[in-house]
């Protein structure tokens, strides 16, 4: 009864109700879309960092991340690989040797991090093979190197150019070896492209003449929901090693992500705060126009709690008519844009400096819709409280004799 009456009451003043419903529609639609773009931008950046280098979980010697010495490798690698293979959550892993060194060309020199990898296993962990823009992702020949576009430009290297890598050997002596550029990659991050190179495990083994030291095991789990659980399990199983999820490896990404959701909720809160005044004003006007009618309703026997609820329902209908359609439209717009992505390649240079992709895929997690729903509910109720109190405080004998 109350819902039917509230619905009819909303349409007494069509123009006024439509204006507030449209304000709610555009406010919420714009808010949802903007949130979707921001979340998409950040999720894309995180996913790019995970795909480029981080993976979901990494294992290191406990001191390696701080000192980065070639001698700080993971021992008993076979035992560890058995543990990883027996874990049902782990989809794939790749073992890496990581050497700090310099790359020299006839024209310049640059400090680099040298990743010695098994190309086939690395394909299952990172997306470097997809980022090759010139040449190929390794072949069967020896002493091949994959370098980033930025480094190639800096050292003036082309495909098949020779580049010398110098790094410290296991015996602390300096080792220098020439590699031929087999491929040039370009990721979302200029810094990564300038400071990271990839060679093959076999070549490093030939150079060192011993078993290759494994400094890093990069792991991908079957679902992102399993990252924390798997990290916890591995930490307990490999307590003499450093096991870290991507959130621990790149705390700045994780922290910013947390703040982003807080900021976006505040952003939606500001939109709804503005709407609150509009709805409250509309409801107050509506109550003032119906003082006599409310007096009659109280006189004939409508309990004040029902009158209170009637006004709250009217406010809910006002905000939710625009708010829910705005949310749905925002959701559909995000879905549409996420299929092809938003091309921001005109800002590519600037975005690459921050490791951001030039193609944005808007997305908004389900819990953001839930929090938006709760915020709309609270806004509606707050907006209607003052008008509702005004209505229930009416004295029927006086209200009935009010003429507007």
């Amino acid at each position, binding site marked *: *009864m109350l819902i039917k*009456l509230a619905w*009819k*009451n909303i*349409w*007494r003043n069509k123009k006024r109700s439509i204006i507030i419903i449209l304000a709610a529609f555009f406010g919420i639609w714009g808010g949802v879309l903007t949130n979707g773009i921001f979340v998409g931008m950040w999720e894309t950046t995180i996913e790019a960092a995970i795909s480029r280098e981080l993976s979901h979980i990494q294992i290191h010697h406990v001191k390696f991340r701080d000192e980065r010495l070639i001698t700080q490798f993971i021992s008993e690698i076979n035992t560890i690989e058995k543990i990883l293979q027996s874990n049902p959550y782990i989809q794939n892993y790749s073992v890496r040797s990581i050497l700090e060194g310099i790359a020299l060309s006839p024209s310049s020199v640059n400090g680099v991090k040298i990743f010695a990898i098994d190309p086939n296993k690395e394909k299952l962990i990172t997306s470097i093979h997809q980022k090759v823009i010139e040449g190929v992702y390794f072949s069967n020949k020896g002493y091949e190197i994959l370098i980033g576009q930025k480094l190639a430009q800096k050292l003036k290297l082309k495909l098949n150019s020779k580049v010398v890598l110098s790094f410290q050997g296991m015996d602390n002596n300096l080792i220098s070896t020439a590699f031929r550029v087999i491929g040039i990659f370009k990721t979302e991050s200029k810094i990564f492209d300038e400071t990271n190179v990839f060679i093959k495990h076999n070549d490093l083994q030939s150079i060192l003449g011993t078993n290759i030291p494994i400094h890093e095991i990069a792991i991908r789990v079957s679902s992102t929901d399993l990252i924390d659980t798997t990290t916890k399990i591995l930490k307990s199983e490999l307590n003499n090693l450093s096991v870290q999820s991507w959130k621990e490896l790149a705390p700045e990404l994780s922290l910013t992500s947390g703040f982003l959701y807080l900021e976006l909720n505040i952003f939606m809160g500001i939109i709804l705060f503005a709407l609150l005044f509009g709805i409250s004003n509309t409801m107050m006007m509506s109550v003032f126009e119906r003082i*006599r*009618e409310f007096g*009659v*309703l*109280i*006189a*004939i*026997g*409508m*309990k*004040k709690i*029902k009158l209170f609820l009637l006004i709250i329902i009217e406010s809910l209908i006002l905000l939710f008519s625009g708010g829910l359609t705005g949310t749905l439209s925002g959701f559909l717009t995000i879905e549409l844009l996420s299929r092809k992505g938003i091309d921001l390649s005109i800002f590519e240079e600037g975005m690459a400096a921050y490791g951001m992709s030039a193609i944005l895929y808007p997305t908004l997690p389900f819990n953001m819709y839930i929090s938006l729903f709760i915020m709309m509910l609270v806004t509606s109720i707050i907006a209607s409280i003052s008008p509702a109190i005004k209505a229930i405080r009416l*004295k*029927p*004998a006086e209200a*009935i004799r009010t003429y507007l």
Partner: protein
Amino acid sequence: MPLIEIISLNKIYDKTKVPVHALKDINLTIEKGEFVAIVGPSGSGKTTLLNMIGGLDSPTNGKVLINGINISKIKSDELIDFRLKNIGFVFQSFNLIPVLTAKENVEFIMLLQGVTKSEREKRTIELLNAVGLGDKIDSRPYELSGGQQQRVAVARAIASHPSFVLADEPTANLDSTSAEGLLDIMKELNQKLGMTFIFATHDNKVIRRVRRVITLEDGKIKSDVFQN
């Protein structure tokens, strides 16, 4: 036990710090089935007395007993419930809910009472037929004439099966024909169903039709006359 018993009723309004003694020591008894008019010039206290009987306003002192219950002692929310069950109201300006149809306006009070849907519909149709608006059940108030609106208001007032109906200037906004038609309906309800009607009015058409006329002047009962 009388339907309504008013004992030493006084009402003093304290508006703008100048007290207005609207009702002065009123004593009155109204029995079930009466058809009574409270008359008097403007400001004589007719509406105030009607509001006291209807529990819409509280006396400064004195008692209003309905079926033996002192309504001035009933708490606000319980008084609303008491009105819902015992009192029907007809107002000067009809005061129908403009967004509801004639049928919905009549049904509304029964919804508040929790009457079942089938019973509501049956009673609504019967009442609208009884007031001559069987063909207007789906009309909104703005689609009805003043007389028709007031007839819907009468149907609404008696739909809840009240002990009595209070009608404040029910014919004031009606033309003569509509007023007579409305009074015919009320008189018939009084005679056939024994429904008690109490009017506050200065309309001679009403005064001529009632059996009892209580005249107020300056907040006091000047006369209380039964007529044929």
